């Protein structure tokens, strides 16, 4: 199963490499990864998605917790949560295709953020599977470049991951 693990860690040099190193060292895979500072400048928040059975996910969370730089973590997939990813896609858009792509972007509530004589750059946000569907809808032939931010997530309701 796919899990979204969100980690609060010390904003220290080397902290990220410890997390990434742990995954390669122990043979766990990372599907997506993002990391950025939080409202508290001494902490950064790292979100990663990974795939594994319960045993593997338990090992991953235990080993992450063992890292001295990791303050707290949560497996968001265990409860109800909101998941978002941002994607920028550059597509070839000429002739009749221009209207078609525009329509498709609207359906997915995306935005065309840059326009050229024969290209559109489109921004789409949402859960990862929505972004996948968008790419499918536009079609491989038109796609020139895809940039995805990796998944971010937050728990629904009162639950927070903080000190």
């Amino acid at each position, binding site marked *: 199963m796919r899990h979204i693990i969100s980690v609060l860690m010390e904003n220290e*040099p*080397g902290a990220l490499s*410890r997390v990434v*190193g742990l995954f390669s*060292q122990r043979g766990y895979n990372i599907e997506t990864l993002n990391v950025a500072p939080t409202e508290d400048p001494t902490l950064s928040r790292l979100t990663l998605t990974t795939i594994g059975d319960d*045993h593997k996910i338990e090992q991953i969370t235990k080993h992450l*917790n063992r890292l*001295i*730089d*990791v303050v707290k973590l949560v497996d968001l997939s265990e409860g109800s949560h909101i998941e978002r990813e941002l994607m920028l896609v550059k597509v070839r858009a000429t002739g009749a295709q221009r209207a078609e792509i525009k329509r498709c972007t609207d359906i997915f509530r995306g935005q065309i953020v840059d326009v050229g004589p024969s290209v559109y750059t489109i921004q789409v946000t949402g859960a990862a599977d929505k972004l996948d569907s968008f790419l499918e809808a536009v079609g491989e032939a038109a796609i020139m470049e895809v940039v995805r931010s990796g998944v971010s997530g937050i728990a629904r309701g009162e639950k927070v991951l903080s000190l």
Partner: protein
Amino acid sequence: MELLSGGEMIARAMEDEGVEFIFGYPGGAVLHIYDALFKSCKVPHILVRHEQAATHAADGYARATGKPGVVLVTSGPGATNAITGIATAYMDSIPMVVLSGQVMSHLIGEDAFQETDMLGISRPIVKHSFQVSRTEDIPEIIKKAFYIASSGRPGPVVIDLPKDLTNPHDKYEYNYPKKVKLRSYTPAARGHSGQIKKAASLLLGAKRPVIYAGGGVVQGNASEQLRVLARELNFPVTHTLMGLGAYPASDRQFLGMLGMHGFYEANNAMHHSDVILAVGARFDDRVTNTCSKFCPGAKIVHIDIDPAAISKTIAADVPIVGPVDSVLTDLLAVIREMRQADSSLPDASSLKHWWSQIDEWRDAHGLWVKPRYDISTPYIKPQQVIETLCKVTHGKAYVSSDVGQHQMFAAQYYKFDEPRRWLNSGGLGTMGFGLPAAMGAKLAFPDADVACVTGEGSIQMNIQELSTCAQYNIPVKIISLYNGYLGMVKQWQDMQYEGRYSESVYENSLPDFVKLTEAYGHVGIKVTQLSDLEEAMKEAFARKNDLVFMDIHVDPHEHVYPMHIAPNGSMRDMWLSKTERT
């Protein structure tokens, strides 16, 4: 408030931390630190002959005393030479603080002379590491390093020190913290009481119980608690290679080591058990044999300070995270309460059947009941060497070992009655560990007998330390089992490669170890006859102030048994001799 340079801070912090020895080797990046040590530090420094030996000596000191070992090395090659020893300590959860020099801050990343990314290289083999970026932070970082290294599940911590931050001109306030707190690091202080109750009822209902105790009992200083609990319950106890000594070997309830080269009775007791109490052990592949066939009827209680060690390879039915000493104490209290409250609970005598079964196994193939090795050959048997060593030192010596057949014979035949006497690289299996580890123990306990059991292969991996022993007068006894082969490699080649000895034979290339030892100013004794063995060993240990190298020629073709049948075997599947198997 006192003003000190970075170098002086390090020297002072070693004193304030109560460090007894620094094991190290100087070089460009740490010269400011060495100058500060020279000028003011009261902590003796041991100049090894190779940085790997510094880490192993610090490690041996740590294993013998329970206190963190301290290493100081220069950048680049000094740091990389220390890596094997750091990995060795990491795999066995040994507390260690490694101070490694680094090029000047402004040169980092420029491929400067003797620059290496020590934090990057050591990352997978440290508990934690620090790069110092401001001189003012040095005292607090050192305090944190000692705290992290020695608390929770212990391990090595590296501090990377750019040279400019230790220069003698820039001085800052020095204040060594009494305590540090890390918001992201709080090792468990007690086990969960509900889990402990569950464990107690499981143990009290057991018909075929066994206690499987590992290095965590030694590192967690819980031998006493283990002894009391095991005796109260009348449970058999087996140890991993790392646990030896935590439970007294001469006690009737002790079944010997378990695992790949474990005792027949220990492996069988495990396989047939209905409840296993695992304490500070990690179900290592050298213990379990094939995981899917591991102890099919057993419910498992697993106590460990590290949650990640629990249910890693074998699922625990009752996991308990906490320091082993306090958990065992709590467990014993609950068991006593339960027994008091309910007199119908089975008492120690209810295990009579189980014990008679175990005694049957022990009589059939136990290594300590009578010699199981073939004494019809003209050679000294390696097992006899260890038996003699145990006899001559009354089972009380600190014994380090290297890696190979000699190591397994030492583990099987030296009867350790006390924890922290057996100093051995179990996790990484590092040849070259033995001599420097023995040095660390001998420095810590100068009046104790300290022996290094080794082979002619392993000893050559750090033999240069004979020179260090001469400089600081470290009179360890080296018990070298000369078989002319990389014996353990040869054993596998005999068993799995039809005796093709690919690169495991020395032919006529070995030095005269007696002369070699004498060249370093020590004493060498060569023994080739069994009849000379005991006298020679007595003489060696009678020479209190001499390092003695005993070059003992043993049967070149001996194998270590029992040996797990692998792959696809279970705990109870073993070779018992070259021809006999279960």
